[in-house]
């Protein structure tokens, strides 16, 4: 399989003007500006093959949007190289721009006051899509996203979910080979999110497009991506499968017990007690994976247990832990 995206030691350092408060500092800064280096991205490297769906995770300010912007060509890195589909993105060659797409969940591309259909036709002209191909692509997108009822309404009259569907659709009219999606499901309700995820999965299956997406929602990532890349403080913290992640970073198990009789048992001798709002009746403790058998047998003999469960910790906790390293 060919490498669609190849990133080597890419870095982005910003120079931010720095100034203390107070009148004296304000006066001085008029004559001499002090700058601080902010290392948004530090020597990140990874490779993505054609057809992969990769999730980019990280807290706000981690550097994932900056990396995405460099890969789409919006930003020039301060160090390192990257090649997408054989092109250097920030050279913004027309051929490159025609084969990729960037969809940002928090920024609108469609014209607010006119029906989506007209924005679509405008994009057809911009991307020089021949009529036959346009009709075909539209038909496929309509099938997957149910666009037709939305097309004639002015965009400002669409709900957030409907608008997101159109924003994604308009980005795919030119059948790009690489999709960069920045928070595509932000603000959507559960059904809305699920529908977008279904669509992306189906689209990837049908077209073999490579998808790189950032998200705050773990559900996006667990549902779509077999591979995730975690970026924190500008550095690559993890690059691999989801299951390997929990095993590597948080080799813990969660033991939940339902105890008979009164609830005042102190379980801290067995493991780290953990709060679980969803299931208040049970007590949960966190235990190292290798200690599970030992702890479980101790608990079973010491305590009046009605019910016991052993599970992997939720992915959110795993990633939380990864971020705090």
């Amino acid at each position, binding site marked *: 399989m060919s490498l669609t995206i190849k990133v080597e030691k890419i870095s982005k350092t910003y120079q931010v003007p720095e100034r203390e408060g107070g009148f004296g500092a304000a006066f001085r800064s008029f004559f001499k500006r002090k700058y601080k280096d902010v290392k948004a991205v530090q020597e990140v490297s990874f490779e993505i093959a054609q057809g992969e769906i990769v999730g980019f995770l990280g807290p706000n300010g981690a550097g994932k949007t900056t990396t995405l912007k460099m890969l789409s*060509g919006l930003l020039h890195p*301060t160090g390192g190289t990257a090649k997408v589909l054989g092109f250097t993105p*920030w050279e913004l060659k027309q051929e490159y721009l*025609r084969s990729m797409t960037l969809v940002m969940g928090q*920024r609108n591309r469609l014209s607010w006051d*006119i029906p989506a259909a007209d924005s679509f036709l*405008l994009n057809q002209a911009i991307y020089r899509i021949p009529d036959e191909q346009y009709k075909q692509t539209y038909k496929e997108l309509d099938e997957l996203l149910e666009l037709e009822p939305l097309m004639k309404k002015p965009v400002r009259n669409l709900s957030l979910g409907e608008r997101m569907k159109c924003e994604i659709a308009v980005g795919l009219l030119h059948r790009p080979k690489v999709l960069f999606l920045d928070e595509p499901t932000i603000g959507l309700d559960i059904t809305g999110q699920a529908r977008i995820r279904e669509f992306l999965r189906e689209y990837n299956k049908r077209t073999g497009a490579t998808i790189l997406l950032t998200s705050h929602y773990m559900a996006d990532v667990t549902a779509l991506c077999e591979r995730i890349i975690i970026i924190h403080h500008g550095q690559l913290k993890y690059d691999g499968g989801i299951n390997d992640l929990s095993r590597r970073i948080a080799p813990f198990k969660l033991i939940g017990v339902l105890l008979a009789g009164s609830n005042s048992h102190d379980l801290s001798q067995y493991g780290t007690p953990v709060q679980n709002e969803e299931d208040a009746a049970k007590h949960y403790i966190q235990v190292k994976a290798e200690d599970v058998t030992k702890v479980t047998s101790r608990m079973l003999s010491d305590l009046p247990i009605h019910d016991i469960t052993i599970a992997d910790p939720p992915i959110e906790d795993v990633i939380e832990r990864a971020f705090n390293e």
Partner: protein
Amino acid sequence: MHTFKLLSAFFKVNVQMALAYRADTIVNILLNIMWLGWELLSLSIIFSNTTTLGGWGLGELIALLGVFRLVNTMMIALIWPNTEKFNQSIRDGSMDYTILQPVNSLFLVTFSRITVWRIWDLALAIILIVVGVNMTGDSTTPLQILTFILLAISGTVVIYSLWIVLISLTFWFTKFDNNVTILHALLDSGRYPVTVYPAWLRIIVTFVIPIAVATTIPLQALRGDLNIQQIATFFMVAVVSFIVASQVWKRGLKQYSGASS
């Protein structure tokens, strides 16, 4: 060619937007007629008190008003709405989308908004020019008309280039929302012949913000007052200013994407 297809696509989109606000469009047309009435009224007040202004008579001033409206319309139909869109796109980040589209960004920034109802203003302007020239009693040769068209376009290009430089400055000075106010402010100076202004003001509206020049010079060409050197010089000024402006724009984009050299 693709450019033509793209232009007509933009045109269609803007017609749609105008139709979405039908009543506003009608009101705008009415206001435009009102302002034309005011401009003619003020000219008649001036000429009820004098026979010449800056060496030019009433007919010439009416023709000048026509040239002014011609250049002005080409600017207003494009410059104001696109400045608003440009400022907005920098504020909300949708400039990113503009950069990533496989079309020259300058083209997109110039034509994505077109105030379509202003087209009739062009017709009005030409009527004013024809009426004004008739009043002076001068005759015009086809050559004069051609050089007039050439220099009217050149004048528009000069002002357009100035606009590009002004909005490009926003890439460096982000809180620069008022980037084109100075252009808008000095616009009115194009209504009257340059000879009316005191020397220092004349220099400003000729060299710094060359508005009076964009209107006066094409009219002089129409009257056959210019020689071939002057025509060629003004045309070259337009070409050079466009080249400079596109370079400034390119630099500005590089600044925006953090590619400081």
